[in-house]
Every structure is written in C-alpha cells, then in structure tokens.
C-alpha cells in the first residue's frame, strides 16, 4: 500500500481524458467518505484521480426543478443552494456532513432513509457526463425532467463505483422541500409486531418521508426490543393531525415519543451520517425486502450488532465488527447481496454473487482496455 501513486488533482475534464489515455489503470476518488467502494486488490498500482477540484454548480434554474453540477461538488454546497430556494434532493443523500461529493454519491448509488417518499438516486438523476475507458467524454440522458432518448447511461453509472467510467458532471431533478417535518418513535418489545407495523403503514395512503427500524428503545437508550422511526413532512399546521392518524393504526399501548424541532432534525441527520455505526466497524448495505427480514434476523440474533433497517424494510445497514467472511456466508445462504461502504473488505461486494452476464458485456463496451477496476470479481 505504501507505494501507491500520488493522486492527480483534477480541475478540468481534459485531465481525466488524458489520464485515462496515458495510464494503464485509473481509480477515482472524491472525499473518501466511502473508502471500501474503491477496493480492488489487483489495482493497487492504479493512478488515482482526485476529483475534488472538479467542482461547482454549472446550471440551476429553480423553476425548472433541475440543476447540473460537476462531480467534485460537495453535497453540502448543493443542499445549501437548494435550501435557499425552498428545494431539496428527495433521495436524501448520505454522509453529507462527512464531505460526500455529488459524483461519489452517484457512483455509490447510496440514498438515505428519506428516499422512501419519492425514490433513490437512480430516480432523480437526469443526465451524466463521464469519461469512458477509451478516454472519450460521453453525455447520457439530458437536463430536462423527462427524456427517453438513447440508452440510459445516467442510471447505468448509478452504483457503478468508478468501474464503468469517470463521472465528471451530473444533472438532477429536485423537488420543493417540505416546509416542516415531524417524527414518531414507536417502541416494540419484539421484532415481529414492528415488521407488521411496517406492512400496515406502507399499504395505507400515507405520504411517509421515512420509515426505519432500529434495535433497542431509542428514546430511553434501553437495549430491548425495536424502535420504529417514521417521519412525515408538509405544511406545519397539518403535521400534528396527520401524525395522529398514522399513530392510530399502530397498536395501542406501544411506547411512543414524538420529537420535534432540532431534536427531530438531528435524529435524521445522524441517521444519514451513520452516527450509530462505530467508525472501526465494517459498514455494509444490504438490499432486501420486508419478507426476507425474519430469516435474516434469526441468523443475526445470536450476535447482536449495530444495525438499522431503512426504506420500510428494503435496506439493511449493518456495522459488522469482525471479519466479513461470516456475514458474507449468512447473506449468501439467504440469497442476499450487499455492498461494503467502509471497512476491511477484499472486494466491495458481499453476499450473493452478482449475476454478471449482462454487466460483463456492458463493461466490455465502456471499458474495453480494463482501465478501471473489474466490476465484479471473476
């Protein structure tokens, strides 16, 4: 590791093109908030490109609900600009305070708890400009909210972790931000009724912003049971009555707290920063559905680890303290696939091996000379 090459500080797209043409192997980094995604053992000698200097908002027309920005732009800058115009990124980006960039957010494909309401990164990206493995700059998608022309490279690059091309600029759709939020934390003594509550809530026409499930009793700090955390947003005057309605369909007698104001905001901000996950642990995201959770829980119950189910049971975030082999085998057994975001992995993928026939062909077209790390291990 010590003899890794010094990164090229990129300020112009042409530098990316030159580097891709000049070097045999190239890796990309932004602020390094998701370091495990860059792991590719055979690529230690690759030339790193640091894209933090390729930053800035290129276009923003609030009335269009769209913006275009360079890949190295910090999300914090994007969020501030949008907030000043009463708008936001509905996919609820993660690790914003840690310094995450827009390009890294697209490349990692990670969305936060708030993606429940309107969708994830893949649902809000409109266009992407990237340098492919031959050094050409390619534009996919567009800058308008609706577009069906050509292959959907913006979606393909979402979650591609720098292995299909170097993202240099992206266009996004944004929405008007809810003027206010309220949350409800409901404690359940055991897992099963908490999961039932998720089903009950998501099949009703409630506009929930987020619906997470976390171990323990969040308000008291006790270790027993599970806490369902839900969030709604909208006109301030209506929030209390809307929350009452939501609460009425949950079983009576459950312990409930309803944070408001700063406490409410910081509860969700901490979730987006993974404040609950010990820094030394492996941070892993697993995609799943609610019906797959009981089998997984029965395997994890023997070794309780910090975790959080988000997006109404569609994502598990887990902070795995030990070697990943055991988690890998549990996920494999259950047919679940995940990605290691932070920690000591040998490859970023974990669990069920990705089916790669289609991906392999796409990779060969975008990166014919293997300039970028392999998408999946052979």
């Amino acid at each position, binding site marked *: 590791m010590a003899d890794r090459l010094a990164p090229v500080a990129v300020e112009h797209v042409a530098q990316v093109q030159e580097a891709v043409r000049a070097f045999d192997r190239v890796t990309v980094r932004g602020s390094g908030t998701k370091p495990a995604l860059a792991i590719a053992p055979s690529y230690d000698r690759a030339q790193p490109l640091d894209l933090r200097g390729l930053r800035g908002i290129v276009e923003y027309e609030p009335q269009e609900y769209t913006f275009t920005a360079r890949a190295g732009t910090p999300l914090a800058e994007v969020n501030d600009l949008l907030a000043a115009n009463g708008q936001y990124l509905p996919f609820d980006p993660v690790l914003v305070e840690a310094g995450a960039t827009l390009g890294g957010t697209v490349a990692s494909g990670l969305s936060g708890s708030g993606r429940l309401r309107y969708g994830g990164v893949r649902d809000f990206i409109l266009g992407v400009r990237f340098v492919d493995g031959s050094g050409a700059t390619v534009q996919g998608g567009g*800058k308008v909210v609706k577009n*069906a022309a050509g292959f959907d490279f913006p979606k*393909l690059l979402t979650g591609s972790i720098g292995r299909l091309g170097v993202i240099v600029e992206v266009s996004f759709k944004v929405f008007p931000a809810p003027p206010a939020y309220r949350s409800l934390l409901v404690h359940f003594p055991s897992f099963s009724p908490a999961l039932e509550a998720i089903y009950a809530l998501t099949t*009703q026409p409630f506009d929930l912003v987020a619906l997470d499930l976390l171990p323990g009793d969040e308000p008291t700090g006790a270790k027993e049971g599970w806490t369902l955390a839900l969030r709604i947003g909208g006109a301030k005057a209506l929030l209390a009555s809307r929350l009452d309605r939501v609460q009425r369909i949950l079983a009576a007698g459950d312990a409930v707290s309803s944070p408001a104001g700063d406490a409410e905001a910081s509860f969700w901000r901490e979730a987006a920063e993974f404040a609950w996950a010990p820094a030394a642990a492996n941070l892993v995201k697993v*995609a799943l559905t609610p019906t797959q959770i009981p089998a997984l829980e029965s395997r994890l119950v023997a070794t309780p680890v910090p975790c959080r189910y988000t997006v109404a049971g569609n994502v598990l975030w887990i902070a795995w303290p030990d070697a990943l082999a055991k988690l890998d085998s549990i996920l494999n057994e259950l047919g679940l696939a995940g990605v290691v975001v932070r920690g000591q992995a040998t490859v970023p993928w974990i669990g069920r091996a990705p089916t790669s026939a*289609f991906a392999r062909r796409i990779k060969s077209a975008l990166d014919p000379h293997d300039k970028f790390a392999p998408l999946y291990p052979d």
Partner: protein
Amino acid sequence: MALETLISELTARIPPERLLQQRPQLAPYESDALTSLRARPRAVLLAGTQEEVIDAVRLCHAHRVPFVARGSGTSLSGGSLPIEDGIVIALNRLNRIIALDPRQRLAVVEPGIINLDVSRAAAPHGLYYAPDPSSQPICTIGGNVAFNSGGAHCLKYGMTANHVLGIKAVLPDGEVVQLGGASLETSGPDLTGFFVGSEGLFGVALEITLRLLPKPEAYRTILASYDSLAAAGQAVSDVVAAGLLPGAMEIMDRLAIEAAEASVNAGYPRDAAALLIVELEGEAVEVDAEFAHLRRVIERSGAGEIRVAADEAERARIWKGRKGAFSAVGRLSPNYIVQDGVVPRSKLGEALQRIEALSAAHGTRVANVFHAGDGNLHPLILYDGRVPGALERAEDLAGEIIHMCIELGGSITGEHGVGMEKRRHMPAMFSPDDLALMSSVRRAVDPLELANRGKMLPAGQTQVTAGQHEQAVTDHG
C-alpha cells in the same frame, strides 16, 4: 437459406394458428401506431410461453435472422415496426400476473399484460401502478419497459424506469439473465434501469417486477381556460413557483379542445384558446390545503373560466377529454404525426409561439396537447396522406420542431422513444462520441444486431464518426 431453415424449425415446434405466415395474417403486424411506415415480416410468432420466446430468440440467433418483439403495437415512434423478412415475436398472450404481493406492494408480470390491467388487479388492495400513458387501456408493460413510457404524472412520479425493480430477460443470443430484484434498492450498477428504454435492442423482457403505490386518498382537479397558449404556459410556471408539486399539469390548445369536444363531449369551454388541467393528489387534509393555494394561484393567472371537479364523475370527464385527445384529432384529419419533444418548462411559452409560427409558415395545421408539468410537448401535425408530398411536408415541420426542442435545451423525445421516427435526429442531440458508445454497447450485447435492428441508433451508426452527421439519414424515405 437460413431464413427458410429457421421457418421450418419454428413450424416443427409451433402450431400453425400461432405461427402466422400468410399475407392476410401478416397484414395487421406490418405497422404500429406510426402508420406511415410498413414492413412485411416473414412470420409472426404468437408466443404462448416464455420458453417459446427464448427458443425463438435462440433460433433467430443461430440462423442470424433479425426479430422484433411486439406487444399491442401502440408505438408512436415506429418502435415495433417489423423488419422486412424478419420475425415478429408477439407477446400479448404472455399476459399473466405471476405474483401480486400487496403487503410488499409488488407485482411480477409477463410482458404482454396490459398496463391498466396491472392497476385493475392491484385495486382491491388499495394499490395501483403509477405510469399512465394515454394508451394504457391497450398498451403492454413489455412495450412500456422497452420505451420507458411516461404519461401525465411524470414530474412527481417519474417514468416507467422509476417503477420497474427487476427484469428477467432473454438477451439477443438467447442467454437468460435476471437484473435487479424485488427490493427498492440494489447493489451495483442499475442494470434494470439501463435495460428500460433500450427500445428492444437488449433483447426481450420475460418477467418484470413492478413497484405498486397506495392509491392516493384524495384527488382535486381544476380546469382553467385561457385566451392564449402563452398565458396557460405562464400559469404552469406560476404553479411551480408557488412550490406546489401537482400530480399532473396538462394543456390543450383550441384545435385539440375542438376535437375532444366533438369526440367525447367532455364539456370543455369551447371558446378557449387553451385549457389547463391541474391535479393534486395525496393525503386528504394536505390536498385540501394545497388546493386552496393552487386555486388562488390559478385565479391570479388571468384564467377565463375556472372549473373545479366536484366529484369523481366530473374528474373522470375532464380526463376523458384529455386522454382521448389523440384519437379525437383523428376526426379533424385523415392522418397526423405526434411529436414528443421536451423543452425546459420555463421555455414552454416560447416553444408554443414558435410552433404556431412554423405551422403558419408551412401551411400545416398543428394541434397541441401536452404534459406541461414536464415540458413534454405533443404537437399533432395534421396531414392528408392521400395528397402527394403531404407526409414529407409534415415530417419536415416535425423535424423543425425537434430541432427547436434541442436548441432550447430539451430532448427529441420525452416518452415515445426514438424508434424509427426520430433516429435521424439523434446526431442533433448526441455527439459522435455519445453515439459511438451507444453503438458499442449495442454490439457488445448483440454483435449480430438482431434484436429490433434499425431502431434508435441512426442508420449507418456503426460507421458514424466526427463530421459525418449527414450520412445519418433514414432509409425509409
């Protein structure tokens, strides 16, 4: 000959009533909703099972015969136009709902299922499938997936790709792959999203996992008339500037109103130059509060008549006129071309004025019905196909409108896809490098270019290099 060997192998497997080869049997398949283009396939396979589709694709690959998968043939871009002497794989019989899981709000369907039938099946559970192209009573999910279909609700809910979680597909060489799954999230590149909108060039979707949504608790619909298209366009900007996020915002012009009235008698004000329909949806208390806000915005927007749908029947009538507008325009003219360009929403007024001027300059009538919230125009260019040269004049006008959309920073297609119709305009929107990579991807997936050959990518694309835009002309005349 490879084609005849393929036919004899298919004949050995498929009963004759499901392997159409006679001219009268083939006639309905020679064209889709872009009726100005026709091509006669060698045979049409009415596939009965997924295995038959996989078999047929493998045989086509083995014998190097191009094929086109087809649903209901509602493509307005010629996306399901057959290949002359190729095979059509008709998927309408593959219309099962394989699984409906209301608790997880999922449906796994075959490609031949009709869009609206998904919502019908989900309705008893209080759920629905959100993408609603105007053709939803007949178009199939397979076609929606191939062309990333839209509808009236895309600003808030996105397009088909935003509602497809997983796809089992047969690639053009017969390999079967599973992309994505049932979770709202995945790990790795969004291959499902990449497959959607690939216009059949990546093969045939066999099973599609759809995300269902809870049916909104309340809808509030308002209809406002304006004395100019520009004023209606400005009202849309006002609604957006007010921070509202309507489920749908639609505009119709005088010609479209006239046609809709004559056809379905929706009760629209007849003297208006433009009509705006805005609909809010969501939780009842929220929708009520937002609707009061919306109403104030519309009242201040210079509207003539304002109508608020008092009940579901009135709401349905307002939408009936809008959704039936395309077919209604058929009463005004023997033929028409539907354009599908997109402009930034703030440029709607400018775009409409320029379309009006182009229409006058070409002496060709244009009716406008469009998704104003998305900036997705649908100029209907009217012509009489029996008049020599009329189609060509209409196509010239369509081309000018498309170039205007690109010039204003938009797209050549919002939801109908490129198909046959707009592929010659691809080089105006994408650079030679962009197109070269699309072409490489196409050949990496389908080296023989068998799957829906000739669609989306400009003709001769494999040879297109910088400065050679002019060679990218259509070969259908």
